[in-house]
């Protein structure tokens, strides 16, 4: 597989480490009232789509960027690769 790194261009997937569903970015607030339920969902519940899937890859043997890769689980086609930091900010994460 080739992951087209947004900064570095195409790189072999063997340089990357896979983590999982990009919903892991959406970490709930641990101090909130419903934290226990929210963290149960966050830690254990995943969609398993046959088709486009957003997932987290880490460029371990490269620039150490975390990436959000949009990959079709049926065809392996990768339609989008973004810096996870940008995605996290776009989803409202900050400090």
């Amino acid at each position: 597989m080739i992951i087209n790194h947004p900064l570095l261009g195409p790189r072999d997937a063997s340089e990357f480490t896979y983590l999982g569903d990009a919903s892991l970015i959406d970490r709930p607030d641990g101090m909130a009232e419903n934290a226990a339920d929210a963290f149960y969902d966050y830690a254990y519940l995943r969609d398993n789509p046959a088709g486009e899937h957003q997932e987290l890859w880490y460029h371990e043997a490269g620039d150490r960027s975390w990436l959000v890769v949009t990959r079709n689980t049926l065809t392996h086609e990768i339609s989008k690769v973004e810096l996870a930091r940008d995605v996290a900010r776009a989803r409202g994460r900050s400090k």
Partner: protein
Amino acid sequence: MHDLVAKTALGGSEPRVDTVGSVTCTEVPGVALASVAARRGKETQAQKALVKLIGAPAPEVQRFTGDQVLAFWSGPDQWMIEAPFDSHEDLADQAKAIFGQTASVTEQTDAWARFDLLGDGINAVLELLCQLDLRRFEPGYAARSSIHHIGCFALCRGTDHVSLYGPRSSAGSLHHAVTTAMISAH
């Protein structure tokens, strides 16, 4: 002046040199390194300080610039700086003095072992070692990839000269991989 004697990454007193055919692999211990990462919101100032430090424009992604003090891109708003060890053993302190609060600076001198591949036909060696596209290896190119599962930086200093930086603790394995490939290719 302290009285402890340095060892090279391979454990010798003198740098190791291996030649196979037209290609030479030289251990290069005489280099000081420091990592520089811009502080949040200080990216522009950090870049300006970097320009001042290296006396050249800041390197683009996957490039290096500078001469005696040289910087190569290592991540977003992050660089590695390199200078001769003898004159810059305290490179991190020197750099911190220039960067101040615009960047975090960390000494990296002994975190890495450097091997320089020199000579005609180094590409035949490199293609057995790393998956980087060698067509992009032109002077000023700097990239990180892995060689036999060892995370390494490769800096292309000339068409017949590439520096490999690998973690110091893995210097022996990296050296073995490189010299094995040299014998295989030449």
